[in-house]
């Protein structure tokens, strides 16, 4: 017999649990065993709904039930028998059904996100990233320690970062396990390393360039890049967990950054602090890095003349707020 349609009963993950091949209409759905599709759901009536073919297509005819039928998210009004759009999902009680009709146009075949293949393809890059990160961390540690520091102290401090990174990626991999049935540790490591390196390298480079050109704003730009890179990293992590929701996550993370950043800017401007970064450029680099000529003391002092105007507005004893109980600290990230 010709198959006219498939009615699939979907589980919570959207996977078919039970499939009915339909060779003739109408199809009665309900809990009673004389139905064509028998559902084991206490929230479904013995005779819950009927699918009937009319001239213009397939219609759903709900019976008078407690929980009714929802088409997509909208409940079907009592008495109406709407037309079912192609590949539509409807919910009877707590059971979701998908109806596919013969001759429907199918979506094109999607490329499989084969994590194993992905990892294999990026293995070399990943190795390079790990190596680079190891060298970078070592350099940072060497820079900030005095000669003759005890080896074990150095080792602890050196290993704490990779240990943290492993835990971070393992947690994400567990997430992948839940949503994708794959412990995608290396993929998450790849994502984390890439964006962390983008963050720290651009921050460091921005400091150096800012010093070289005497342009503190470049250092501030570095801070912004740092935050964006971290946001990007988070987005890539969740994207690996739920690829179908990437767009939603992008919107969520972007709004979190925008709202958080906005609040921070407002707070800083209320406190008369620089909107981004520190009060002044704190980087001192090698003598050869400096690219600009120094000015004379008098010229420097003259260039500070506009401060008077800014400060006169800042000095106004406004709105009686006595904000002398400001907590200490206050990095902007």
């Amino acid at each position, binding site marked *: 017999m010709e198959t006219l349609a498939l009615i699939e009963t979907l589980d919570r993950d959207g996977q078919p649990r039970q499939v009915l091949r339909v060779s003739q209409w109408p199809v009665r759905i309900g809990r009673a065993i004389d139905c064509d599709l028998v559902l084991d759901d206490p929230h479904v009536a013995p005779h819950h709904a009927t699918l009937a073919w009319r001239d213009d297509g397939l219609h759903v005819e709900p019976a008078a039930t407690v929980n009714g039928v929802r088409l997509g998210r909208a409940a079907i009004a009592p008495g109406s028998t709407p037309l079912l759009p192609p590949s539509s999902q409807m919910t009877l009680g707590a059971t979701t059904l998908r109806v596919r009709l013969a001759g429907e146009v199918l979506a094109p075949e999607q490329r499989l996100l084969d994590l194993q293949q992905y990892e294999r393809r990026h293995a070399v890059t990943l190795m390079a990233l790990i190596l680079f990160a190891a060298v970078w961390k070592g350099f940072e540690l060497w*820079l900030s320690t005095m000669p003759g520091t005890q080896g074990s102290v150095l080792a602890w401090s050196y290993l704490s970062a990779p240990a943290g990174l492993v835990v971070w990626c393992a947690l994400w991999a567990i997430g992948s396990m839940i949503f994708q049935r794959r412990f995608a540790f290396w993929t998450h490591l790849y994502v984390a390393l890439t964006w962390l390196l983008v963050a720290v390298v651009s921050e460091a480079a921005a400091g150096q360039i800012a010093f070289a050109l005497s342009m503190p704003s470049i250092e501030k730009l570095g801070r912004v890049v740092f935050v964006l890179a971290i946001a990007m990293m988070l987005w890539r992590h969740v994207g690996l967990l739920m690829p179908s929701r990437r767009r939603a996550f992008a919107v969520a993370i972007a709004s979190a950054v925008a709202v958080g950043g906005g609040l921070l800017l407002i707070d800083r401007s209320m406190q008369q602090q620089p909107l981004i970064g520190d009060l*002044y450029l704190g980087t001192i680099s090698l*003598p050869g890095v400096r690219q600009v000529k120094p000015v004379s003391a008098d010229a420097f002092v003259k260039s500070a003349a506009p401060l008077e105007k800014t400060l006169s507005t800042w000095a106004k004893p406004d709105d009686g707020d006595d904000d002398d109980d400001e907590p200490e600290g206050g990095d902007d990230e």
Partner: protein
Amino acid sequence: MLLNMLLGRRFGRLPVLLLAAALGLAACARAGATPPGEKPLAAPASPTSKPSTAASAAQDDADSEDSANLSASARRIYDIGRPRLLQVRTLLRDQDSQASVGSGSLVGSDGLILTNYHVVSQVALEPQRYRLNFQTVDGVTGALQLVAFDVVHDLALVRMAKPPATVASRGIFEFRPQSAALAQGERIFSLGNPLDVGFVVVEGTYNGLVERSFLPQILFSGSLNPGMSGGPVLDDRGRIVGVNVATRRDGQQISFLVPAEFAQALIARSANAKPITGSVEAEMARQLLAHQQALTTRFIALPWRETKHAHYSVPVPQEDFMRCWGSSNPSESKGLSFERSDCQMDTAIFINESLRTGDLAVRHEVYDGSKLGALRFAQEAGMSFRNEGMGRRTHDLSAPKCQEDFVESAGLPMRTVMCLRAYRHLPGLYDVAVLSQSVDAKTEGVQGRFDARGVSFQNAMLLASHYLQGFAWKRSP
């Protein structure tokens, strides 16, 4: 700042304790200096209490004559002081709780009283929250009105709002004529009501003016305690020579008096003035601006001292009215070696509990990073540069606003930051900090910082320029 942390010493002001007694101060003084009730607060034991022995009986005769004289003069001081000394109390406007107490001396027959500015500062700055009251030793009380103040020398005049009829009969304190200067070593007597426990006469010695102090202060070796602020200091004939103002917390019997001439000048200027009803801020700013002008002019006129460093000339001030301390880290240190010098003024002008102003500080650190290499040295130097605190917005001051650039002075290129903060209640006054670090060498350098508090914008610029021009690069000998 790095080096400060290493030394465990913060760049702070000298621990001068002003003598108005608030609850906290009194408790602190008790805990810190004298266990309650154990040490008499009075002057050193007089010869009358010396145990006499038969062997020195002859000398005892002479002594007892002296001691009789001394005791008599102390008695006379007590008799002169008792009716004329008052306790000046700051009370909450709507309650009878006292916020702080000090002392005062009756200097006008209409009830004019001389005291310290810091005793009445809360009333001067926040009249909507506080009011002033007096109490005589024999228990007469009444309200006081603020008449005038000299914030720079920490003096104020207040007047009884409704002088009791008996006030004229109390008499007033006279001033010792300026022509009759005290000799060092002379015995003088400080009066006041320490810690709110009662009328006290403290005997001590006049030691001339405090050395290297921009604002003249008498060095009095005698025990002053919180609550005695504003009380008079008398010579042996009961004439005012000074006013109690402060003591050093880290010393013993090292106390400071405002010389009487400033009090006389204030009285001459304002004895007949009407009580102040409006805001004191404009007048206070005017006085501070005059002070900073004198300070700036005098400071800029002084040449910088010669420094011994091989490659750098660093601006180090003369010690005319500043005091410098130096230090360095142990030579076997494997990291950054440094030497530092820290110069500051002893006197800062009290405005309120959280604001002192009107002083300068200069310090520098010379780094030798030859054991570190260029990259690590740059890292350490940057850390030191970055760690400098510039303050943040407070009740009294705006947040800092900075200007930064590479600056060259006499062949030495430096990274320089200048940050200013404006006074929110004292128009025209600023704090300025100039931070500068040399960027000419791979493994050595110098970082200097100059701070001026309570200067005009123009003088801030003058001082900053003067300071930066004190740096120079020296050719190796």
